[in-house]
């Protein structure tokens, strides 16, 4: 459990970090909280010549809500997501989901940026960000660009981000209505067997809008447009919920691992989504 040797860099601003990445090329990688990257390095599954540490970049930290738009600096820790009252007011689902990530020790170090940039299908934030329809702001040698979370993920550990780009900010609209983040895991500190993020709004007795995303059930997070659509306009009766679950099951593609075989994961995904919808509807 000893990584191969590397050079360590600690730039003070985003421009400096981008410059280092461009200059050092593909042998360089940024490190945020290190709680996904360092385990991979210790297993020697990631061997890097250069680590560019983002800890000193203050412009990448902090949470703000302005005109109904939430902005979170990529270097904001998961612990800070939990403890921010502003965020809890603007998008309470983020706190509910963050509480399901790992354990306090990991959350003190792990960042939202690292969590979404990593591209690990097991991470909880990517699905949540798809549910929230978040925008990722990336800064590279050619300037900044925005990418929607819903089109950011290509395959396990493969994202739309170019090697020399840094994810600086995550933004999304404040939510209203009901929300739920439901996750089944084997123990504290475990990635999801299945997790569902659900946002619903209500119009009288009917569902006005619905956004549903699933985690660790494919090689990317799965925002299931059809599942959400199955709920809109209904009173969330059993038939509607069953239709949403059925639509979701078409969109996911779990694989067998130590958590269990595919049939089990499909079944649990359905149960978890069912419960998340019920809880979100209660709160809507």
């Amino acid at each position: 459990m000893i990584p191969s040797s590397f050079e360590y860099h600690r730039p003070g601003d985003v421009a400096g970090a981008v410059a280092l990445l461009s200059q050092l090329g593909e042998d360089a990688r940024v490190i945020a909280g290190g709680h996904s990257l360092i385990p991979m390095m210790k297993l020697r599954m990631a061997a890097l010549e250069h680590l560019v540490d983002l800890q000193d970049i203050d412009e990448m930290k902090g949470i703000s809500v302005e005109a109904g738009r939430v902005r979170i600096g990529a270097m904001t820790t998961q612990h800070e997501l939990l403890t921010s009252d502003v965020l809890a007011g603007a998008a309470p689902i983020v706190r509910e989901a963050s509480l399901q990530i790992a354990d306090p020790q990991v959350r003190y170090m792990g960042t939202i940026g690292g969590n979404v940039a990593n591209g690990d299908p097991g991470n909880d934030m990517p699905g949540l960000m798809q549910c929230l329809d978040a925008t990722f702001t990336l800064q590279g040698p050619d300037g900044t660009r925005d990418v929607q979370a819903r089109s950011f993920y290509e395959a396990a550990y493969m994202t739309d981000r170019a090697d020399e780009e840094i994810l600086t900010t995550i933004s999304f609209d404040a939510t209203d209505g009901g929300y739920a983040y439901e996750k089944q895991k084997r123990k504290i500190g475990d990635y999801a067997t299945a997790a569902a993020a659900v946002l619903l709004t209500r119009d009288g007795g009917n569902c006005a809008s619905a956004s549903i995303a699933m985690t660790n059930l494919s090689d990317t997070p799965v925002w299931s447009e059809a599942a959400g659509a199955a709920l809109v306009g209904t009173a969330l009766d059993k038939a509607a919920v069953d239709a949403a679950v059925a639509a979701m099951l078409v969109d996911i593609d779990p694989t067998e691992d130590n958590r269990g075989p595919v049939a089990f994961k499909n079944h649990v995904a359905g149960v978890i989504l069912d419960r998340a919808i019920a809880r979100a509807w209660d709160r809507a």
Partner: protein
Amino acid sequence: MNDLTPTAEERAASLKGIGSTRKRVEDARFTQGKGNYVDDLKMEGMLFGDFVRSPYAHARVVSVDKEAALAVPGVVAVLTAEDLAPLNLHWMPTLAGDKQMVLADGKVLFQGQEVAFVVASDRYAAADAVELVEVEYEELEVVVDPFKAMAPDAPVLREDIADEKEGAHGPRRHHNHIFTWEQGDKDATEAVIAEADVVAEEMVYYHRTHPCPLETCGCVASMDKVNGKLTLWGTFQAPHAVRTVASLISGIAEHNIRVISPDIGGGFGNKVGVYPGYICSVVASIVTGKPVKWVEDRMENLMSTAFARDYWMQGKIAATKEGKITGLWCHTTADHGGFDACADPTKFPAGFMNICTGSYDIPVAYLAVDGVYTNKAPGGVAYRCSFRVTEAAYFIERMIEVLAIELNMDAAELRRINFIKADQFPYNSALGWEYDSGDYHTAWDKALNAVGYADLRKEQAARLEEFKAGKTRKLMGIGLTHFTEIVGAGPVKNCDILGLGMFDSCEIRIHPTGSAIARLGTISQGQGHATTFAQILASEIGIPADDITLEEGDTDTAPYGLGTYGSRSTPVAGAATAMAGRKIRAKAQMIAAYLLEVHDDDVEWDVDRFAVKGAPERFKTMKDIAFAAYNQAIPGIEPGLEAVSYYDPPNMTYPFGAYICVLDIDVDTGETDIRSFYALDDCGTRINPMIIEGQVHGGLTEALAIAMGQEIAYDDMGNIKTGTLMDFFVPTSWETPHYTTDHTTTPSPHHPIGAKGVGESPNVGGVPCFSNAVHDAFRPFGLRQSHMPHDHWRVWNIANSLGLHD
């Protein structure tokens, strides 16, 4: 004497002797990070070793190219089997009478097997060089299933002994067969089963798992070439045995070897055996003349050091219509991996599996165990249990449940009518043990009352109705277990390891000012010996426990002993401690009589002093006596006050307990929620109730882990699937339920203070209790047996296969 004179009770209490909830003296240093573990050792010029390990489970090693590794700055040596062969150290004997490769000799037999040992000036260089050692393998057919390993055309795993018809434990009948061990009366048992009213038959699998001490295994070997002395610090549960083995296999005279076990961060059987890392470190230190440290990481620990369990137990239990058990039959297929590296007493290749008649009066029984080689890591250690006792307890406690189903009877009542009765002790079991003492009915009734058993069953029935009516998706399970352990190995007449009798020892020195040091042949790995053994002595010799230093683990200073595992410390070394204390007291009596100017027989022991019979105001305290022992010339008595005792126990001890677990199961997700867990333990005399409670909590949590998720799983290619703590389940406080502890006290009749040992009971009883609770929840739907671990998907799978998702 006046009102201020402390009473005998007050004096006894101030000693903090047997029965006192004395705080653990070890904890101050552990909780402040001041422990001293092997990896804390730093020495001038120390080198570090690291292993190149096989990625394959079965392959021929065609070549090993060290060149690139040797070119890494800081790398001193790369050892392979070829380098060890001239010293005859490329293989080593195992504790089970087999031999094991130290470094791959022509082939590898399990994934993670040690192939080469890199020695470098620091850990980082060693790890870099490991990557650069080029090993060419030729893959061979892999066998991970012990039943397939015994097929006539199965690949030959152990080519070194392929043609040997005799193994360490008798005849071998197949190239992958290790031994057959038979106990009891086969014909009589089979006759009873043939005629029985009712026979329940089941295959009970106790899956492969692994102890998971916080600290992994490691050592520092330091050969002093000037004086020819080898010092070996290591995570050894049996330091003296390691010294003797090291001397026998290295040829270094035993007095020139000093083995030291410093603080050990948990053992659970994982640190009993001898591992290639120790041998390689010693060789590397001899070659380089420098201290060499080797400490494995967590993945290496899980994949290569000793596993536990992996027993396939085919059982038949026969009974009358009324439920009186008439016979028990068991055939076990024991998967030992690539080498038989079990750590059992020599005459017991399947440990004490023949305690599998459990707490029940079973007239005839038969047990056969077949040991088999497969392409998995070696081991088979007693993970927080006496040798194979948890396998035995799991087997019988599952068979009882299956029999209850067969008889359509309540499992608590079935147990009650079959328990060995209090007046039957000492009880000779059908498989050859003499149970020293027990009172199972009292414990059982106390347990059932404590949890309100009848009401629980009513609640369960009501829940079942709700479930059937579609009002809930949760089932309730009530897990019952009554276990009997056999611990304290053991009598030298039938217990030895590599020919070393399994006695243990204590040496006591009383200092002139009345404090003392005691040294033992055991070694604490978290059990709290420094606390409890001082308490035994405090009660025996009247010196406050706080004034007694306890030392273990240094073979140059401690008396010879066989170490700590199998709950043997209190039964054996604890007995030695009491006996050594009694020798001290015998001499103290003579000194006191001399000082009091009376005959030896005219003084009597009174808590912390000898007093003249009938004149309690005339006395000498142990403190007075200690001083006199060093400053008075007493005719006929040698100066000083010391004693040593080597204790050969006349019998094992038989702790027992009654455990009840209540849980809810979500049939849709397979999640279990343990609502309550009640554990009644009878460990005989209770030395420190607080330590007992701590041991029970820890053992139950390990039991929870094993029953509910912890396993070492392999795929068909022999790749380990659970090699990190992400997949190898270790519960956190979140998953750990609340435990209620309780006790009865049935002292051992042969142990000097009546103590039986408790550290492993909760694991032995806990695993079947958790498992029985899961099974019980599904009993109304026809479940008989479903193998552990009961993780979410397997529990879900039970529900699914019983049609509960339709």
